[in-house]
């Protein structure tokens, strides 16, 4: 199997000019379409979305972790965080709501080709400690996303198709 057989097609994306406010709406409402052939779980809300520019090129990825990071001031390290006051996170969240996606997205995005074998993809996910990888089609455009869970589903299906292991 290749990456294109297990990936989830792109259903939603962000623009670098979107506000964080707009971005979280999409993060909360986007639904991962079920993958043909393999039964997965359909959960409302996604943990990350690709960011595409006006011509549809991949320029970044914004995850819920990036949204959390956006509220944490750059000057705050573990030592200073001890002194934060009740309500600080809420106050900072109000401040960044209208800031733009491009300020907080990760721009160093690793991708995988739709023609890549699953082993390449699994190795990349594990080695680079990634949760998801955008999948690039023939014209260098994003055609889908492959999640850790997608590869897990393939592996678990193989396990279950075998005879039950003897203890």
């Amino acid at each position: 199997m290749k990456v294109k057989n297990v990936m989830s097609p792109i259903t939603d994306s962000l623009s670098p000019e979107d506000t964080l406010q707009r971005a979280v709406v999409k993060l909360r409402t986007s639904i991962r379409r079920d993958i043909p052939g393999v039964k997965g779980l359909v959960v409302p809300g996604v943990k990350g979305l690709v960011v595409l520019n006006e011509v549809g090129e991949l320029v970044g990825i914004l995850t819920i972790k990036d949204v959390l990071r956006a509220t944490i001031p750059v000057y705050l390290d573990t030592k200073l965080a001890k002194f934060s006051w009740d309500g600080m996170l809420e106050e900072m969240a109000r401040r960044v709501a209208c800031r733009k996606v491009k300020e907080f997205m990760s721009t160093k995005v690793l991708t995988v080709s739709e023609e890549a074998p699953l082993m390449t993809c699994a190795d990349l996910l594990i080695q680079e400690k990634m949760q998801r990888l955008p999948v690039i089609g023939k014209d260098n455009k994003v055609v889908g996303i492959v999640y850790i869970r997608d590869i897990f589903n393939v592996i678990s299906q193989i396990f279950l198709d075998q005879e039950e292991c003897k203890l």
Partner: protein
Amino acid sequence: MSPDIASSPHFDVNPAFWTATLIFIVAYVLIVSEKIHKTVVAICGAALMLILHILDQHEAFHAEEFGVDWNVIFLLIGMMTIINLIRPTGFFEYIAIKSAKMGKGEPLRIMMIFAVVTGVLSALLDNVTTVLLLAPVTLFIADALDVDPVPYLIIEAVASNVGGTATLIGDPPNIMIASKAKLTFMDFIYHLSPVVIVLMVVLIGVIKVVFGRRLKSTMELRQRVMAMDEKAAITDPLMLKKSLFVLGLVLLGFVFHGALHYEPATVALFGAGLLLLLSKTKEPHHILAEIEWPTLFFFIGLFIIIGGVVKVGLIKWMSLEMLAITQGNLLGTSMLLLWFSAIASAIIDNIPYVATMNPLIIDMAGQLWPEETGLALLQHPDLMPLWWSLALGACLGGNGSPIGASANVIVVGMAERAGKRISFMRFVAYGLPIMLLTVFISMIYVWLRYYYLA
């Protein structure tokens, strides 16, 4: 070409002269333009001086007149190592939070206390370290009080440049001047600290006048600061005790280094070695890796480039020109040096500037008092005010623009990352008047102490 050069008996204007001059000018232009990182420029320039046989390697590495000033390099290495070991103990966060609480959470009072704390710390440590450690806490406190952090950050940079002027170890120009002129820590305390104390008092006054009515906070916000327990910042009390013991010992060493005939670098290296030992670290490479190697290599490269232009006679030509302008009038030279250094340091990095001026002043002294040599020449009573003017001008001039001093670059960068951009003009609006005022007061001081009352 000026006829002076050709007719001067002291050196030949040969291809080596022009080659070295060209390397020097191109390096300066590249450093100012920031097109290539200054450390890369310095290393390449130094390498060219060697490859093109302007200097041989022995001169570059070992000759006091032309080579790397290892006293400066190892003093910086020693102090950076000590600071890298103190930093994780939470000492600086402790001081900053304690200061904010001493200010009772009132924004104006906190700004004044922070200015004093920054000034004192900058006199004892280097300015970059001081603002690097205090700026994050400042941004944090400003958020807690819901006030604009920008004036606080600019005042901190300014206070660190003023405070750093006070001592031999406070600012790189002083370290370089001390090493070249063989001045001691106590010489700086005796000659520069008094005027710096005056300048700090004036700075506090300026803060009060400028910000007195603008900074407001509510009872509730003040309570946020007062509720912070500064003791929680200390992560390693045992290491903190060891650090303060060694820091105290090092400062004592600086006070007595002249009397005991130790170079400042010896004292700093001893402190670094002792604290590394006491820290019981098994991985010194972490601590040593955090030393600002790019800055140190910038110094190394620069010393070799300057050594090259000293050897070929460019510096001698410049000193002859300067003598021609000032006609040997030392009061005039002193005032000119003070203001020229201040303006030059506001525009360019004061490190290459002072590296160039040091040999120039020594050469000029050689012209004025040809019968003197060694310490008698370097510390000729009539020459001393020139060293102090250079130090005051180069250190205080840094306040004139956001690129004038490393501390300014640090606060501007940190503010930008925190989403509070400090524009060039906004910095200048605070920095330039303070620079002009402090240099003016220094001018009065130099004139009064070394000429009028002398």
